[in-house]
């Protein structure tokens, strides 16, 4: 239950963050860059889309889906084993994609984006919680 509370909290934080980025992109405004000055450089780079879908939209869909599945698991909506499998699989895929995007920022774009890193750390933290809770 504690693990799900943490996972749900993290996915809600991710949802809020990606909604902010989507809104800024639609309004053609620059997001606030709390650390560094390269957010716009990363967010407007040629790597800001995956399969023609903007990364912020993909992130938003991911966080919303994960929030719903965490809710289903807490409420106890059947089939629980299926939801648990989908939850673990989607967070694992999200963690790998975040790893790829972090590599792109580090080696290819050579600029760091605060919001992208925050999202990556959120997903890695979720993966860490899942791994730790499976061992306890």
């Amino acid at each position, binding site marked *: 239950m504690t693990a799900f509370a943490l996972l749900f*909290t993290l996915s*809600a934080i991710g949802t*809020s963050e990606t*909604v*902010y980025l989507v*809104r800024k992109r639609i309004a053609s405004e620059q997001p606030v860059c709390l650390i560094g000055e390269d957010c716009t450089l990363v967010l407007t780079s040629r790597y800001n889309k995956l399969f023609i879908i903007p990364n912020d939209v993909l992130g938003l869909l991911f966080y919303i889906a994960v929030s719903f599945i965490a809710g289903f698991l807490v*409420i106890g909506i059947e089939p629980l084993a299926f939801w648990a499998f989908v939850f673990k699989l989607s967070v694992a895929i999200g963690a790998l994609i975040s790893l790829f995007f972090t590599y792109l920022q580090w080696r290819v774009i050579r600029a760091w984006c605060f919001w992208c890193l925050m999202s990556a750390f959120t997903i890695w933290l979720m993966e860490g919680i899942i791994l730790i809770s499976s061992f306890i």
Partner: protein
Amino acid sequence: MKKSSFHILRVGLAITFLWIGILIFKNPEAWGGYLEPWAVGLLPIPLSEAMIGTAIIDIIIGALLLTDTLIWLAALAGLCLR
């Protein structure tokens, strides 16, 4: 700084509303225990159904706060609900 603190407070409150909504969905009868017996007697529908309605409103308020949409409406609804 004032704007940052507003957003931190907004997201924190949103998560609280969403999580309480989920917990009420999980066990509506137990959460109905927080209602005074005389108030339960006034309900035109069963207690569990009333609590599920509360959970739905909680989740809607949480979603509005989380997505920074109609904040004034969410705040007003949250105030009335509490």
